[in-house]
């Protein structure tokens, strides 16, 4: 089991001292001369970050990313060329469909990065799913802002708000502000909004019930998606009713009997969560006691969607498209 690294009181004390010093220096910056970016955006920029305000003093030129949603959203915002270090991708390939994929950027740590890795890379800013291994306070004390993808706030546990496609668009806009690339961000948002509208038009969902489920590991029991995550919005826009929609969380370890009881018309099986393919995921699902009696199984209405296409970023458009196409068949 992974245990948090012990932190000495000395480290804590110096972190506090450093943050005080930085705060003292920072107050000068508000005095007047706001810097201009290439696009004409002015700094400092204040943005919301998981319910807290973060001040970006000047246009960040180097980004350390943690996870794939950060890269995907930065691509939409037109800022992937500033990524200088990648982490937290766990040996998975870059997401599909990126306009400007940061293929040549070094992967500093395939896993969750430690504080030393982050600080050593000297990025101007971090964009990612939040930090597990590194203490956010340490990173903040080092003067590196840590922007978290809104759909991944608080480690998915206590999301600030229910995540929808609107959240994704707002995130792209936010990154546009931070990196002074508002125009590119706005263009992407317009494109994605049009795609979303077109998809919703073609949605063949009959208002039937559905459950979006997945397995966290080869040994885990089934989990489901509640009403707070992007999966709920995807089901809704496809014209389906999430049977776990009343649950106030994005993810929940769901007792299988609740699925047998709800007996939804459709099962959306998210596969690839731990590296498994669709067949492996389906086999695991079908081996659950009683699964073969579910009407979705009997009526051949189990729909596989790659988990990588259902993240809190524009990749979920791909997931929605796959779901709508499967429903149309």
């Amino acid at each position, binding site marked *: 089991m*992974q245990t948090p690294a012990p932190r000495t009181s000395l480290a804590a004390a110096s972190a506090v001292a450093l943050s005080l010093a930085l705060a003292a220096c920072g107050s000068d910056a508000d005095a007047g001369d706001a810097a201009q970016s290439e696009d004409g955006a002015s700094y400092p920029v204040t943005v919301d970050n998981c319910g807290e305000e973060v001040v970006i003093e000047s246009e960040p030129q180097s980004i350390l990313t943690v996870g794939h949603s950060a890269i995907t959203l930065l691509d939409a915002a037109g800022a992937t060329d500033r990524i200088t270090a990648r982490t937290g991708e*766990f040996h998975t390939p870059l997401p599909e469909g990126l306009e400007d994929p940061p293929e040549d950027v070094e992967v500093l740590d395939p896993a969750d990065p430690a504080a030393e890795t982050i600080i050593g890379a000297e990025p101007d800013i971090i964009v990612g799913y939040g930090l597990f291994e590194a203490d956010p306070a340490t990173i903040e004390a080092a003067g590196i802002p840590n922007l978290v993808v809104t759909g991944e706030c608080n480690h998915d546990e206590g999301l600030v708000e229910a995540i929808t496609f609107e959240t994704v668009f707002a995130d792209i806009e936010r990154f546009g502000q931070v990196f002074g690339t508002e125009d590119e961000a706005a263009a992407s948002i317009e494109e994605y909004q049009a795609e979303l509208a077109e998809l919703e038009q073609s949605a063949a969902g009959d208002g039937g019930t559905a459950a979006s489920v997945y397995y966290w590991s080869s*040994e885990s029991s089934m989990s489901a998606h509640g009403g707070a995550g992007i999966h709920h919005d995807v089901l809704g826009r496809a014209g389906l009713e999430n049977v776990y929609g009343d649950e106030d969380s994005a993810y929940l370890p769901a*007792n*299988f*009997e609740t699925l*047998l009881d709800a007996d939804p018309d459709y099962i959306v099986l998210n596969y690839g969560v731990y590296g498994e393919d669709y067949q492996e995921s389906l086999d695991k699902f079908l081996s659950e006691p009683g699964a073969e009696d579910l009407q979705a199984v009997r009526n051949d209405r189990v729909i596989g969607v790659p988990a990588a296409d259902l993240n809190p970023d524009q990749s979920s458009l791909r997931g929605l498209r796959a779901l709508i196409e499967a429903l149309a068949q």
Partner: protein
Amino acid sequence: MATAVEPEAHVEAPAAPPGRRRAIRGAMCITLLTGALVASIPVTVGIGPVPIPPGTVARILAHHLADLGAVDWTTAQDNIVWQLRVPRVLLGACVGAALSVAGAAVQALVRNPLADPYLLGVSSGASAGAAATILFGFGAGVLGLTGSAFAGAIAAIALVFGIARTGGTLIGSRLVFAGIAVAFALQALTNFLIFASDSRDGARAVLFWTLGSLGQANWTTLPIAAVAALGITTAMTFQARGLDALAIGDEAAHSLGTSPTRFRAFAALLVAFGVAAAVAVAGAIGFVGLVVPHLVRRMVGASHRLVVPAAALTGALVLVWADALARTMLSPQEIPLGILTAMVGTPLLIVLVRRLHAR
């Protein structure tokens, strides 16, 4: 998992030969516990995130057990009761019984009240075996995951014996230290395997294993746990005199005609098989094996002829009810069982520790 130990601290030794009154009281306790367990099984089968009326539950059970009555329930209800809850409740009973008996036996074997069934390195061995299979497919085809965990547990106990047994004797304190050393080494090995591999699945799957759960219960794995529970309870009940003798001390055991080394080896091996089977099907569920034996000694005294069957029944009861809570408290979410056993177990442990210091 190994708990802090005070070598050779004494488990309450059996007092003078139990009198008639004590025997009657013990028999009453066993009868009551049996009644409570027999009643709890159908009652807890009726408890779950999906409400099913008790009458329906009873009819479903009667239908499957005795082919009685016409079917007036849904397929979903049938599956929930018969495919999910019944195996799960029975698995809980078996695992609880096996762990508690193993705990009582280990506490006597090493004469340490804070010993638990995982003290002999069994759970870390099982985790290491499972990790090797999940990460590298080691033995996956031949043994399967359950088999690999079992093999890992047995290998761990063999290692512990190899280290502890020097000069032809096997004494309790050395068994404790060997167990702790092997447990730490195997935990390190497991963690190393996880970090060295690229598998996204590895850390998650092994973590799930170390937390323990009854959520994967089904009719296929149930017999393994049932054999383990019945086997260890029966064998330990028959060997109760040996456990009593060891609980007093090696000198006393000699004078009572029991070879401490031979008996300790025999009983520890039995414990290893029982616990390995329990861990292989349900992961390492904590606290039950540590706390239940103490509860039971307060109820029936220190004689293992009563402690063993009473521990089996109490352990089964505790786990069956803890799991019923685990699956309903935050329904439809499930709380990991280890959290509930710890929530119940820690206060009892604290009381126990305070008593130890008071003495």
